[in-house]
């Protein structure tokens, strides 16, 4: 099977995303990992722009034909990660909005005009 390295790597990344998605936790560590990941990604992007030849070699090394394909794969991975983290964040916001709306509702109950005790 050709391109085995890139296939394994991409599938692993997606599996990790999936695991993160199904596991509820938003710790300081996750936050830090995200920031660091973003920095690494930026550095890699700069590197790729400055040394396209090396990206090409890297692509050939992991079994992808061209550097451009490798960059595209990386983009897809980052994009999906972004989408998942946005969904996660939205759920947290939903919970907060629910609590807020519930407090508002409970702070002002309306009573019917008492015709019966």
């Amino acid at each position, binding site marked *: 099977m050709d391109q085995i390295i890139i296939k394994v790597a991409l599938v692993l990344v997606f599996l990790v995303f999936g695991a993160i*998605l*199904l*596991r*509820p936790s938003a710790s300081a560590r996750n936050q830090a990992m995200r920031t660091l990941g973003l920095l690494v990604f930026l550095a890699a992007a700069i590197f790729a722009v400055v040394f396209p030849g090396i990206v090409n070699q890297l692509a050939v090394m992991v079994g992808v034909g061209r550097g451009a394909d490798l960059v595209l794969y990386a983009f897809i991975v980052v994009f999906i990660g972004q989408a998942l983290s946005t*969904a*996660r964040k939205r*759920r947290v916001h*939903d*919970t907060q*909005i*629910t609590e807020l*709306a*519930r407090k*508002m*509702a*409970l702070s*002002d*109950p*309306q*009573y*019917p*005009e008492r*015709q*019966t*005790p």
Partner: protein
Amino acid sequence: MTAHNADTWLVVPLFNEATVVREVVRSAREKFPNIVCVDDGSKDDSVEEALAGGAVVVKHPINLGQGAALQTGLDFAFGQTGAEYFVTFDSDGQHRTEDAERMVERLRAEPLDIVVGSRFLDDRTNASALKKFVLRLAVLFERITTGVKLTDAHNGLRALNRTAVREIRITQNRMAHASEIVGLIGKKKLRYAEEAVQIIYTDYSRSKGQSLWNSVNILSELLIK
């Protein structure tokens, strides 16, 4: 109105039911004097109609979903003096107060924390074959994932005591709350039983009834945290 069921609160999620809610509340109050309707951001006169029927109304400032409304109503009722039993009840007239009464009586008489209504313990309720099939699938899914053995996964009629209300915290705002409740029954080891109830599928309730597409939504709500 007598002291009958004075220790019981009916919790009724309310969303755009102005045409029927007054009558539903009025007739339910013949058996259950305490009713709280949780208005979930209705755009029509639901609030006024519910008040006219004799219910207490708490209002979500925005639409959050039926699960959220149930939790808000349970929070409200739980804080009322003398509240011992809680019944979740639909605002569109598809539940019968006779069923609700029997369920509360069971909570009083038997060592149970929660009694869940079931359409499938007898043959009174008419549902389409496809709907029955999907509901059976849901039941199977829940048995496997929660270990709780119920015959009707998504019956909105339930009676709870204070223990059950304390333990059950609904976080699924939209449709998946029914499965969430079943899951919590298993997880918190609540003592549960089923009671045969009849769902009145009127043309009105059918016209706005749950589409089967919702089963897909429910699954995704449950799985993606």
